[in-house]
């Protein structure tokens, strides 16, 4: 087992692990909408399968955050 940092917290995983498996392991709710940084570099969504995470790597999952107010969105125009 190796130690990696996921969103600043240590996790023990068998490496190498693909980004997509790490996303699944962390129960990321909507994998098609998460932005991922590996050691400070953004990873293209299309490369989640092929990108491998290794010992001591740092991974950040970044999520969309709107305003938490879906009722207001109904008032906006749709173009």
């Amino acid at each position, binding site marked *: 087992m190796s130690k990696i940092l996921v969103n600043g917290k240590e996790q023990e995983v068998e490496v190498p692990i693909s980004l997509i498996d790490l996303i699944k392991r962390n129960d990321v709710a909507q994998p098609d909408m998460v932005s991922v940084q590996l050691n400070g570099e953004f990873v293209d969504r299309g490369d989640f399968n092929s990108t491998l995470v290794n010992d001591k790597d740092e991974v950040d999952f970044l999520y969309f955050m*709107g305003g*938490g107010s879906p009722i207001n969105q109904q008032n*906006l125009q749709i173009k």
Partner: protein
Amino acid sequence: MDFTEDQIQRYSRHIILQDVGVEGQERINKGKVLIVGAGGLGAPVALYLAAAGVGTIGIIDGDVVDLSNLQRQVIHFTADVNKAKVLSAKEKINQLNPEVEVITYYDLLTASNALDIIKDYDFVVDGTDNFPVKFLINDACVQARKPFSHGGILRFEGQTITVLPGTACYRCVFHAPPPPNAVPTCSQAGVLGAIAGMLGTIQAAEVLKYLTGVGDLLTNRLLTFNAKTMEFRTIKVKHNHRCAVCGDHPTITELVDYEQATCEIKSKH
């Protein structure tokens, strides 16, 4: 700019603050800030900027106050329900600090009006609740080289980043708006009211830091917090050379209005 006795009293806690002082307060008084959205984030931003004496505050919002807003949009009161949010906000700002000039736009920010509206301001605050406008603000500000603060809140969490010309932009981090059928605010909606205040006051502080030139702005760093654990984190983010708006080969050269996802909210009536 000579301060009156009243102004010296009103702004005394800034004036005696090392790093701000008379000079910093003058810069605040000359500042022009546009707040996009007079809602959960825009409310604390507007109140703190008004209290601080920001000379001109522009507010754009095409909505009216709804009873369900009052849980977090602290600039609006019960008597304001059904009133235009920009008008309600202007009234409170005027009561708090009559010296502030408030310019209201009872409208939506769109690809056709964005550049024209933001051009008159020193700094733009994203206080919107939806992704199409968040991306529009980003793209417009990047293209016009306007500094801005992005803010987002959801449930118990918040995130914010300050973007200056040349620093990592919102699109560097979140390449494109989520597809209309996959909006997290819909499936897992709701927000703890005070989170809006936490995030909005961070944005207001960034504006005041920018205007006064004090401290280090939240650039190239995405600040996130979770109020359940009260843990704050800043994640270093780099300017993305493949960014569609500020990268080496930008593909976005004109502003666009993205389709807005809507959520079906079942009426209880």
